């Protein structure tokens, strides 16, 4: 077969096994970035057209256009182009670039609300049809939610749940389409279907129905490709087709689903095999190889979903988390850096900096030095990269996993997750003090107990109460998630993404906590200083008087860092007691996205001295201004948080002023690489790196029009700084930027 000519044969030829194909065929690249090519004329012309459209989008409150008349599906829209003459890689979500589709299946109410927020009216017939005949995910969830679940959600103890938007965090193995062609994949699914247990129970029936939908989705994928004149029923025969087939598979996913995070996966090493073959044969030049990646990335930068304004509070800056994992190491000891890893990163130079795709460097001690230096160089120049520790993840996910959203690892095509947003642990601590009553509204939400009585908070007593509240919360949290994911599977099933998975998948259920450092510091204050509670007229404790000093998270001080570790372990253990929908494996993230601002707003004063309404720290970061011993002490504290108990990821954002890294470019690169090495060698999980001057951000707040591309990493993803609201911008400026006078 021409498509597989010159590839080293293996198991991958007989069954769907992309990893086997990669391992047998990829060539690690140890060299530097010297070989890279600049953008071609076509790319330049195409991207400059996109820049005009992006400027227009910014000028229209962030939404260029909405197609509110056509519920979006894989095949709903006629082909769309940006500039057909210049496009090497084709395919758009709707019939025009940046035009957002109406996704109803996630939630009718949400879809209508999102349309209206941007001055558009959804088609009346569609709305009526869904109202009368078709329940959506959001409605499904709310028909089942208990009063307790609604209250927990309303007061903000559990928030941001994917009950009114697509859950996302599922990564189709899009590489399967170029490698096998869709027909092979359909055949595989048909075979799987025949092999199912014939004894009908609800689990088997559900799987049978899902497989039916998956096959239908694959058929639709072919039809959609056909409209672009492409036959993807067969494998890709060259690099251009490989990129195109891969993108079409991804495109089908983002047409069908508006999940919060829609990762691309781990494509570069896979694509490199096709690039190398074509380069060897002289079929393409380096400039053409780069052009394919540049044009793919242009498409990924245009991914858009229609969102409500509320959504922006928790996921600010209109992100789509087209996360692409780059690098890492194989279990055989070879690193997985290829020339195409460089080409992907190089798009930040060819097209300028941007938050998408969310480039995630899988750090390993085995990465070749020139690659690490190139990444560090780009971090300093663009702030667009995040790094995650492949050396600790490989143990759990092998060497062919991707990152969903920000920090969630999963084996590609073999594992998926049920995304569960996060709960507010800082608020839960206040519940422990106030006997389960919400400190803002005063209503009884958590486990009822007397409001704390003594003059001074006692560590053992508060911890005892905290654990009781945790028992309640973990149970409620798991149950709420069970409802959500049952309904999501039922009403908004990701059939094309799941079609690009094995038929038997391992499922995670990913919980999250916000406010870790505030809780650790609060417990530390209670333990090592004297914290006197102050009651308000309702009899609730809403202020605290702190006497004396106490160790604070972020200073590499075990006395408090161990409290943070203990909180994570305890919470995870409690979660695991509660059975999950489809026997998913419980995991936990320490990640807030940008919701730390909104969570803080809804959280009263805490015993660590943080005042009511002030933001919590993002992810696993120390609370701003509490790091007294400089950046690496903060890194060391975060590095102590145990990944084994927080398998859904531990997000840490490091921001430094350029000069603190060194006096020359070479020194800065060397020192940043050393920070990464020193941090990850302690088994830390994740780091966002921002290198920029505070003045730049301040100026960008005043003159956003001058900074359309200014990118900054927040909690596990990157955003255009000017797309954040003022509160979120201020919170970022408040964060500790490491610098010396």
């Amino acid at each position, binding site marked *: 077969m021409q498509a597989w000519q010159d590839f080293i044969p293996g198991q991958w030829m007989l069954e769907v096994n992309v990893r086997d194909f990669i391992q047998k065929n990829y060539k690690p690249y140890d060299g530097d970035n010297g070989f890279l090519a600049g953008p071609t004329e076509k790319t330049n012309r195409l991207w400059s057209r996109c820049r005009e459209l992006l400027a227009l989008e910014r000028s229209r409150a962030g939404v260029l256009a909405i197609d509110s008349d056509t519920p979006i599906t894989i095949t709903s829209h006629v082909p769309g182009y940006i500039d057909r003459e210049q496009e090497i890689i084709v395919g758009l979500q709707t019939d025009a670039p940046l035009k957002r589709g109406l996704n109803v299946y996630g939630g009718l109410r949400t879809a209508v609300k999102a349309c209206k927020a941007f001055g558009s009216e959804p088609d009346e017939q569609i709305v009526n049809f869904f109202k009368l005949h078709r329940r959506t995910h959001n409605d499904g969830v709310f028909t089942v939610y208990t009063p307790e679940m609604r209250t927990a959600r309303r007061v903000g103890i559990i928030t941001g749940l994917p009950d009114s938007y697509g859950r996302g965090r599922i990564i189709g193995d899009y590489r399967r389409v170029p490698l096998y062609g869709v027909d092979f994949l359909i055949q595989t699914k048909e075979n799987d279907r025949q092999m199912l247990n014939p004894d009908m129970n609800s689990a088997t029936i559900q799987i049978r129905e899902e497989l039916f939908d998956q096959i239908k989705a694959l058929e639709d994928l072919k039809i959609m490709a056909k409209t672009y004149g492409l036959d993807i029923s067969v494998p890709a025969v060259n690099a251009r087709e490989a990129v195109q087939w891969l993108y079409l598979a991804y495109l089908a996913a983002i047409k069908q689903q508006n999940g919060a995070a829609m990762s691309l996966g781990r494509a570069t090493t896979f694509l490199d095999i096709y690039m190398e073959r074509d380069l060897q044969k002289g079929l393409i030049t380096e400039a053409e190889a780069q052009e394919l990646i540049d044009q793919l990335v242009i498409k990924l930068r245009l991914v858009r979903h229609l969102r409500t304004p509320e959504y922006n509070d928790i996921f600010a800056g209109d992100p789509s988390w087209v996360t692409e994992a780059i690098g890492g190491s194989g279990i055989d000891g070879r690193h997985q850096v290829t020339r195409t890893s460089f080409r992907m990163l190089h798009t930040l130079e060819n097209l300028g900096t941007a938050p998408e795709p969310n480039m995630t460097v899988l750090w390993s001690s085995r990465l070749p030095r020139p690659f690490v230096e190139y990444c560090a160089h780009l971090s300093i120049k663009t702030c667009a990269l995040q790094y995650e520790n492949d050396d600790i993840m490989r143990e759990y996910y092998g060497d062919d996993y991707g990152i969903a959203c920000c920090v969630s690892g999963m084996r590609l095509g073999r594992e998926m997750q049920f995304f569960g947003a996060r709960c507010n642990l800082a608020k839960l601590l206040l519940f422990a003090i106030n006997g389960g009553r919400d400190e803002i509204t005063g209503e009884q939400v958590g486990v009822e107990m007397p409001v704390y009585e003594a003059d001074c908070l006692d560590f053992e007593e508060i911890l005892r109460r905290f654990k009781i509240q945790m028992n309640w919360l973990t149970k409620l949290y798991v149950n709420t998630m069970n409802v959500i994911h049952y309904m999501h599977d039922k009403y908004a099933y990701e059939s094309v993404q799941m079609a690009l998975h094995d038929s038997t998948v391992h499922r995670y259920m990913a919980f999250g906590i916000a406010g870790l450092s505030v809780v650790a510091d609060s417990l530390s204050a209670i333990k090592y200083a004297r914290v006197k509670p102050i009651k308000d007229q309702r009899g609730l404790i809403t202020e605290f008087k702190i006497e004396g000093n106490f160790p604070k998270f972020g200073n590499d001080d075990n006395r408090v860092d161990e409290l943070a570790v203990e909180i994570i372990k305890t919470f995870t253990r409690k979660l695991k007691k509660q059975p999950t929908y489809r026997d998913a494996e419980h995991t936990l993230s320490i990640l807030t996205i940008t919701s730390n601002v909104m969570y803080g707003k809804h959280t009263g004063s805490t015993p660590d001295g943080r005042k009511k309404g002030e933001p919590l720290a993002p992810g696993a970061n120390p609370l701003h201004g509490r790091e007294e011993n400089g950046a690496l002490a903060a890194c*060391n504290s975060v590095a102590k948080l145990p990944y084994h108990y927080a398998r859904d990821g531990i997000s840490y954002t490091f921001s430094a002023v350029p000069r603190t890294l*060194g006096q020359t470019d070479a020194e800065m690169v060397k020192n940043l690489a050393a*920070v990464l090495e*020193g941090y990850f060698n302690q088994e830390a999980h994740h780091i966002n790196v921002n290198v920029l001057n505070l003045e730049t951000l301040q100026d960008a707040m005043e003159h956003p029009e001058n900074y359309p591309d200014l990118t900054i990493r927040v909690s596990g993803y990157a955003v255009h700084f000017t797309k954040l609201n003022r509160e979120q911008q201020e919170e970022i400026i408040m964060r500790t930027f490491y610098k010396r006078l």
Partner: protein
Amino acid sequence: MKGRIHSVDTFSTVDGPGIRTVIFMQGCTLRCQYCHNPDTWNPSAKTAKEYSAEEITALIVRNSNYFAASGGGVTFSGGEPLLQYEFVREVLSRCRQQQIHTALDTSLYVPPETVRAILPYTRLVLADIKHIKAEKSRQITGQSNQLNLANLQLVNRAKVEIWIRYVIVPGLTDAETDLLQMAEFISPLDSVSRIDLLPYHTLGRHKWELLGLKYQLPEVDPPTPSHLEKIQNALQNVSGKPVYILH
């Protein structure tokens, strides 16, 4: 033995090679007019923290990973670290046992015996020259530079690597003849491997006010890049040493 420490910074890239953990010791006898850390002067300041040699060593060792990756290590600064030289020596000795690169950032305005006692324990001395002329040194620091220059010779003879640090304050430390005289002084010192110029800035000024001190230095603008470059070239030519401008 306890040391009185003003603060710790685990991430410096200017106080010696690679990534440094810098220990700022409390107390200084100089009163430099441009000092940006006047809060380190008072040796008995209540804000200082006390650490045992063991505790501070443990804190330093925690960063060994970063030292190894960057060729960095620990730097004692201040204040004047040599005012607590017994403590500093103890910690440096412990660090050297752990193969950590050691450096001292000192004014060298201390008795020669102190310098002699500490030298075997440090691999690098970041040595200030406040001013090459005795009377101007007195004006800037309140003390003559005799000890400073003699100690510099002493360190040089002991063959411990030296980086000279010199603050450029327009109108005060940038007279051409003075700079040339300093360059000629440095030129024969074989242990000096580089000269760092620190352009004066006013970012520390608010600390003086917080401490109720009167900032005596007249309003001067920080030196311009072209002025700094001129000084850099002149010093480089005469001293024969590489000169860096730190920002």
